[in-house]
Every structure is written in structure tokens, then in C-alpha cells.
């Protein structure tokens, strides 16, 4: 009950005004966002705001089953953060280091389970937020996920602006308009290299849609 109340307040009274009024978002092709799970939302990652933006921009029918995949070593690190991540954000925790999860276990297993339960997951294939407003190469985890769930749509979403509004290591959110460009859905095609190349090209096309000023 407490968790539900916190979740409601966090997203409706804090995140929504913060993102939609204080910052402002330009969403292109909102109709391509899935209305129900399972689905894999794939986005580039520069800021904690990315997850928040994706969670409140999706159709309300998706919200109850929408779960961000997050690194357990960070999001479950302290008791308070773990409670918040689990109950308010409803994350799918994954362990990045072998030592933490045991030698032979599969780091993506929790995501498989979530998808099998009908959840839509938010997945950042870069693995970490990295330098603000710079996209790094995607790791192969997304290809493995896709191969295991060939019928689940993969929704590419290009984000920009959040890295300027709240870069890694900063606490203050400065107003910047955010861009969110949704692309055509992708499916696993049978070959990892071909899939990764297709995904990379999809993001390249999306990123060229928007103007991006220099930021140093």
C-alpha cells in the first residue's frame, strides 16, 4: 500500500511536472510505443532522467507492466535505494559482475523471466550512462535477449537532451528541452551480427532526425 502511494506520488506529482513542465519533451511517433507487454524498449542512455522520461511517456496501459532493467550493484546498493528501486521504479535487477551472481548463472535470466510474465522492459544496451550526450557502442546483451524472444517487439527510442539537463555525477536538474524519437519495431532475424548492425543503423537514422548543438 505504502509502495503504491509512493509510486503514484513519485511519478504523478514529481516526475511528470519535472519532465513535462520544467523540462519539456518533443516526442516523435508516439503511436509506435507499445500499448501492452511483452516488449523491449531499447534506448541510448545518458542520464537518470532517461528511465523517468520513458516511464511517463508510454501509454498508460503499459505503465503497470513497464519495468526498467537496472544494475543491481548500483540500484540495490543501499537499503533505501533498494526499497525505492524495487517498489517505486519496479526495476528488473541484473548483476553485472560474476562474483555477485555466482559463476554459472545467466545475467539476463531476470529479464527473460520478466518478459515471460508479460512485462515490457526498458533496456539500455550501452550498459551505462557514460559521457553526457555521447552514444557508445551497444553491448551484445540485447542480441542475446532478442534471440531468446524472437516474437517480442524491440522498440528503438533515441533520446537526447537529458544528458545536458542531468548528466552523470550532477544533482541539479537544469531546464533543457528533451527529444524522444521512436523508431519502427525490430525483431530478431537469426544472426547476431546482422541484428546488431540493423539496430545500430536504426539509431543512427533516428539520431540524425534532430538537431544537436555542441556541448563541451
Amino acid at each position, binding site marked *: 500500500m505504502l509502495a503504491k502511494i509512493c509510486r503514484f506520488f513519485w511519478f504523478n506529482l514529481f516526475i511528470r511536472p519535472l519532465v513535462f513542465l520544467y523540462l*519539456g519533451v*518533443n516526442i516523435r511517433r508516439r503511436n509506435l510505443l507499445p500499448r501492452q507487454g511483452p516488449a523491449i524498449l531499447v534506448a541510448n542512455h545518458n542520464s537518470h532522467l532517461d528511465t523517468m522520461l520513458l516511464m511517463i511517456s508510454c501509454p498508460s496501459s503499459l505503465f503497470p507492466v513497464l519495468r526498467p532493467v537496472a544494475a543491481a550493484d548500483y540500484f540495490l546498493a543501499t537499503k533505501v535505494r533498494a526499497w525505492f528501486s524495487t517498489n517505486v521504479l519496479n526495476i528488473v535487477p541484473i548483476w553485472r559482475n560474476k562474483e555477485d551472481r555466482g559463476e554459472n548463472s545467466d545475467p539476463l535470466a531476470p529479464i527473460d523471466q520478466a518478459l515471460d510474465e508479460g512485462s515490457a522492459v526498458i533496456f539500455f544496451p550501452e550498459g551505462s550512462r557514460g559521457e*553526457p550526450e555521447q552514444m557508445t557502442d551497444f553491448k551484445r546483451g540485447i542480441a542475446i535477449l532478442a534471440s531468446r524472444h524472437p516474437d517480442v517487439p524491440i522498440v528503438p527510442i533515441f533520446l537526447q*537532451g537529458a544528458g*545536458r539537463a542531468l*548528466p552523470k555525477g*550532477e544533482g*541539479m536538474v*537544469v*531546464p*533543457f*528541452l528533451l527529444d524522444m524519437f521512436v523508431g519502427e519495431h525490430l525483431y530478431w532475424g537469426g544472426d547476431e551480427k546482422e541484428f546488431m548492425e540493423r539496430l545500430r543503423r536504426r539509431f543512427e537514422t533516428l539520431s540524425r532526425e534532430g*538537431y544537436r*548543438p*555542441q*556541448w*563541451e
Partner: protein
Amino acid sequence: MNFDVAAAEAVANPVVLWALASLFLILVVATIIVNYLHSRGGSGEFDEVVQRLRTWWIIVLLLSSAILLSSGASLVFFALISFLGLKEFLTLAPTRRADRDVLFYLYLAIPVQYLWAALEWYGMFIIFVPVYLFLFVPLRMVLSGNTKNFLKAAGILHWGVMTTVFSISHLGFLLMLPAGRNPHGDGPAMVLFLIILTQLNDVAQYLWGKALGSRRVVPNVSPNKTWEGLVGGVVTTTLLATVLSHWMTPLLLWQGAIAGLGIGLFGFVGDVCVSAVKRDLGIKDTSQMLPGHGGILDRVDSLTYTAPLFFHFVYYTCY
């Protein structure tokens, strides 16, 4: 300063009510014409015009609600325009990560600047941005110690805050001016006079240009702007301003004509200045916030010139 009294005056001022009623009448007529053309045109020819008109309805509804509600509500409305404009500008313009703090202070300056207007503290209102904020920006930038692109970054921040905050806030101080020799030509009436003429001037220049335009004024900046459009628009605006100023401002007839001439000419200048910025950055619209128009800056570009110029003309001649 008493917002309730101001509100009562605004509502009681028949000139303000007439102006707002006329604005809605224009919108109704325009909507009927555009819908007629749209239904006949078929192939999506007027789609953008329909969208633009729909956005105009929302803008006019918000503006008239604010004006009728109270001077406080109007100031909040104008401050919001400054906020959205500055946000658009700083999103488009190149900025430095080291200046994130400075950007935050610029946003913070918006409520402060409008507070001076609310308090009718003219001395502070007129120097706060061009003196204090002007000096504070480089001071704060120096403290971060990053000298790379220092001058360029400082220039960008100054230009942004001068146009979107200082210029636009003149609408706020204009609103607070008391009635002069014309009991109905008070602040709210003059604000409406300025906004209506500035926006009608844009429309008039566009329509005259569409109808007769061939010779380009500034082909490298804005290829659609023609001498025919400019002259037709300025003449239309001057005539309209001369007539309307008699009811809506304390200006004499000849002063009203000069005000109209200025709004026509400098509205054009504000428009092409924002066009030049967009061309410099290689973009078409400043954002997609206002469907059919583009961004806030695409809409208030002319006002960044006409608001301070009209304000100081009135302030010098009548106060």
C-alpha cells in the same frame, strides 16, 4: 500594488473587453474561412494553416484569461513565455557543461525580473538584466575557471537573456502602467494594443507578400520576406495603429501613427533576427511546441523588438 483592484479595473475597462471580443471575432471569421478553403482544397494544402489557427485559439484563450483574471496572472503568463523562450534558446544554442550553474541562475532571474514589474520598481526593472545580470554572468563563469570559448559562451548567454527575458518582460511593466490622459488606455489595453498589432503585422506582411511579393528584402536570411510584404504590412499596421491608439493608448494621433510604423518595421527586424539565428544553427523551427507555428521563439520573435521599443516610446511621450 493591489492585484484585486487591478483585476476589477481590467474587467471594468470596456476597451479591453472590446479588444478581446474583436480578437475572438477575428478568430471565428478566420476559422470559418480556413475551414471552407480546407474542405474545398482537399489534398492537405491548408493542413498547416488549420493547425496554426487551432494553436492561435489556445494562445488567445490563455492570454485573455490571464488579462481578465488579474495583473498577477498576466505577469505569470508573460514570465512563462520568457521561461519557455529562454529554454528553447538555450536548448538550441551551444552551451558549455561548465556553465550549467550559470544557466540555472538565468532561469532564476525570470521570476525576479517580473517581480520588479509587479512592484512597479522601474529603476530596478530597467537595470537588473542589462547591468547586474550582465556583470554577474562572466563573474560566475570565471569562477568555474574554464576559459575555452569563454567569450562565445558569455555572448550567447547575454543575447538569450536579453531577448527572451529583458525584452519580453517589458510586456509586464507595460501592463502595470496606470492610465494616462486616456482613462481607458491603461496598461492592459496597451499590452493588447502591442500584442495584437505585432501579431497582425506578421500576418499582414505574410498576406501582402503572398499576394504581391516578388522582390526579396534579405534573401540570405529569410527568402520568403519581400519588399511588397514589408511595405504592405507596415502601411496596414500604421493605419490600424493610428485608429486603435485613440482608444487603447494615451498616445496622440500622430504618436499612434509613429508607434504603428515602429511596430511594423521593428516587428520585421525581430522576425528576421530569429531567422538569422535559426539559419546560423541550421534549423527550421525553434521547437515543435506550437503546432503550425514551430516554437515559442518563432511566435514571439517580433515581440523581442516591439515590446521594449513600444514601451519606451510610450514611457517617454506619456509618463
